[in-house]
C-alpha cells in the first residue's frame, strides 16, 4: 500500500518541478544564442488590434528569422491588470492612454508610451438591422436592445463620452468585457445594436451593418504602445514598437480602419 502512494506523489512532485523549470530554460537559451534558438516575443494588445497586429506579426517574423510573436488579445484593462500582477510580457498596447497610465504609474514601462493610432466608435447592427436603427439617437427609443463595453474598458469610456455628446441616456442590456465581445453579441443576433470601433466594423465586414456616427470624432481613443521593464526580450520589444510606429505599420493600421495618431 505504501508503494503506489509514494509513486504517485513522487510523480506529482517531479511534474510540478518540470512545469516550473520550463519557463526558465526558454529565456536562458534565448539569451545565450542569437540565431540558433527560436525566441518568443510576447505582446499583450487590446482586442481591437487583433487583425492589424496579426498582419504585422507576419512582417515581423519575416524580418526577424527565428522569432515567434505570441499575442494575448483582450480588454485593455484586463491586460493592464495582468501586467501589474506580474505577467511575463514584453510589450503592452492599450486602446486608450488612461489604461496605459495605470501601468506607467507602477513603473512597469521601459520607455515612454507611444501613441500609434486612434480609433473611432460606430454603431453596428446585425445585417438585417432588425430594430431599424438609423442613427445613434435611435438607441434612446427604448425599442432597441444594445450592447456596450464595460465603462472601465477604453471602448466603454469612449462610449460614455459619446452618449453624453449625443444625449443618449438609455441603458444597454449588457456590458461586455471587451469590444470584440460586443461585436460577437451583434453578429450572433443576440442584440439589435452595439457600440464598437470602426476597425471592428470593418473586420466584421458583411456580418454587420454599420450606422455611422458623425459625432464620434469628438470621442476618439488613442492607441498607445510601450515596451515593459520586465521584458524577457527587450531588443525585440523595441523592434516591435518601432515597427508599429513606422510608416509600414501605420499603413497596415490604416488599412484596418484605424485613424492616424493625434
Amino acid at each position, binding site marked *: 500500500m*505504501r508503494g503506489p502512494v509514494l509513486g504517485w506523489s513522487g510523480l506529482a512532485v517531479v511534474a510540478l518541478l518540470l512545469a516550473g523549470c520550463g519557463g526558465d530554460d526558454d529565456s536562458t537559451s534565448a539569451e545565450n544564442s542569437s540565431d540558433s534558438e527560436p525566441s518568443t516575443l510576447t505582446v499583450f494588445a487590446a482586442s481591437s488590434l487583433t487583425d492589424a497586429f496579426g498582419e504585422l506579426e507576419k512582417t515581423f517574423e519575416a524580418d526577424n528569422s527565428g522569432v515567434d510573436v505570441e499575442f494575448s488579445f483582450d480588454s485593455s*484593462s484586463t491586460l493592464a*491588470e495582468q501586467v501589474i500582477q506580474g505577467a511575463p510580457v514584453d510589450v503592452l498596447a492599450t486602446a486608450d492612454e488612461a489604461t496605459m497610465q495605470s501601468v506607467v504609474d507602477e513603473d512597469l514601462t521601459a520607455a515612454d508610451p507611444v501613441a500609434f493610432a486612434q480609433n473611432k466608435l460606430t454603431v453596428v447592427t446585425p445585417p438585417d438591422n432588425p430594430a431599424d436603427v438609423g442613427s445613434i439617437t435611435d438607441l434612446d427609443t427604448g425599442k432597441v436592445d444594445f450592447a456596450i463595453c464595460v465603462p*472601465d474598458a477604453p471602448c466603454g469610456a469612449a462610449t460614455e463620452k459619446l452618449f453624453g455628446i449625443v444625449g443618449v441616456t438609455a441603458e444597454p442590456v*449588457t*456590458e461586455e468585457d471587451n469590444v470584440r465581445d460586443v461585436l460577437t453579441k451583434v453578429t450572433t443576433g443576440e442584440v439589435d445594436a452595439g457600440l464598437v470601433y470602426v476597425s471592428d466594423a470593418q473586420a466584421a465586414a458583411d456580418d454587420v451593418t454599420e450606422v455611422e456616427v458623425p459625432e464620434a470624432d469628438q470621442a476618439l481613443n488613442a492607441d498607445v504602445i510601450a515596451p515593459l521593464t520586465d521584458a524577457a526580450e527587450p531588443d525585440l520589444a523595441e523592434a516591435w514598437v518601432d515597427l508599429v510606429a513606422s510608416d509600414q505599420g501605420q499603413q497596415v493600421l490604416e488599412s484596418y480602419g484605424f485613424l492616424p495618431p493625434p
Partner: protein
Amino acid sequence: MARTVRPIASATGRLPWQLLVPAAAGLALLVLPLVGLVVRAPWSTLPDRVGDPEVREALQLSLLTATAATCCCLVLGAPLAWLLARTTMPGRRAVRAVITVPLVLPPVVGGVALLTAFGREGVVGQLGYDAFGLRLPFTTLGVVVAQTFVALPFLVLAVEGALRSADPRFDDLAATLGASRWQTFRRVTLPLAAPGLASGAVLAWARALGEFGATITFAGSFPGTTRTMPLAVYNALNSDFDSAILLSLVLLVVSIAVLGLLRDRWLTGAAG
C-alpha cells in the same frame, strides 16, 4: 500476506508521514488562498465599500437567483430522479448520461450551448422571440435558467442516490393500502428521500451561487439585472482589485454562513 510490524495508526494516534505530508500539502493548497483573501482585504476602506449599492445589488441578485434556481432544480429534478430510480423506463442509462453532462461540461461551454438553444436565434428561442417577443438572454430569468442548467445534475444524482438506498417496499405497501401513485410519491417516497433532497438542494444552491461562465455568456452582465456576485468580482478585477477582493470575501462569508446553517438544520436532523 506480508505486513509491516507497526500498525498503520496506533492507539497513541501517531500518523505515518507518507500520508501526513501530502495531506498537509493538500490542506495548505486549499487554505492559503482563503488566508490570502483575508490578509489582502482592504479592511480600512471596508465600511465605505460594503455600503456601495453595486455590491448590495449583486449580492441580492445572487441570493435571489440561486434560491430560484434551487427551487427549479427541486421541482424539475426530483421527478427526474424518481423516473431514474423507481421505474424501468427504457433508455434510463442514456438519460442518466445526459443528465451528468453539465457536471463535466465547462460552464462557458454550457453558456454557448444555452445560447444555441434559447438565444434569440436559437433553436427554441427563435420561436419564442418571433411569436411572443420572449427573450431569455440579458434577463434575470436567463440567469436562473443558466444556474439551473449547471446545478440540476447535482440535485438529480443526490436524490436518485437517496431513492435507491430507500426501501422500495414502502412504496409497494402504500399501493396495497390504496394510495395512488401521486399520493405514494408525495407522502412516502419524498419523505424517505428527504436527506437526498436536502443535500442535493444545498449542493445545487452552492453551485448556482458560484456560477459564472454560463451566466456571463448566456445572460450577459448588467448591474441589477444579470450581474451576480461572481460577475461583479470579474468586473471589479480590472478596475479596482481591492474591490474584487472585498466582493470575493463577502461571497465567501455568505456561502459559508448558509452552508453552515443548512448543514446543521437538515443533515443532522434527517439522520434519524
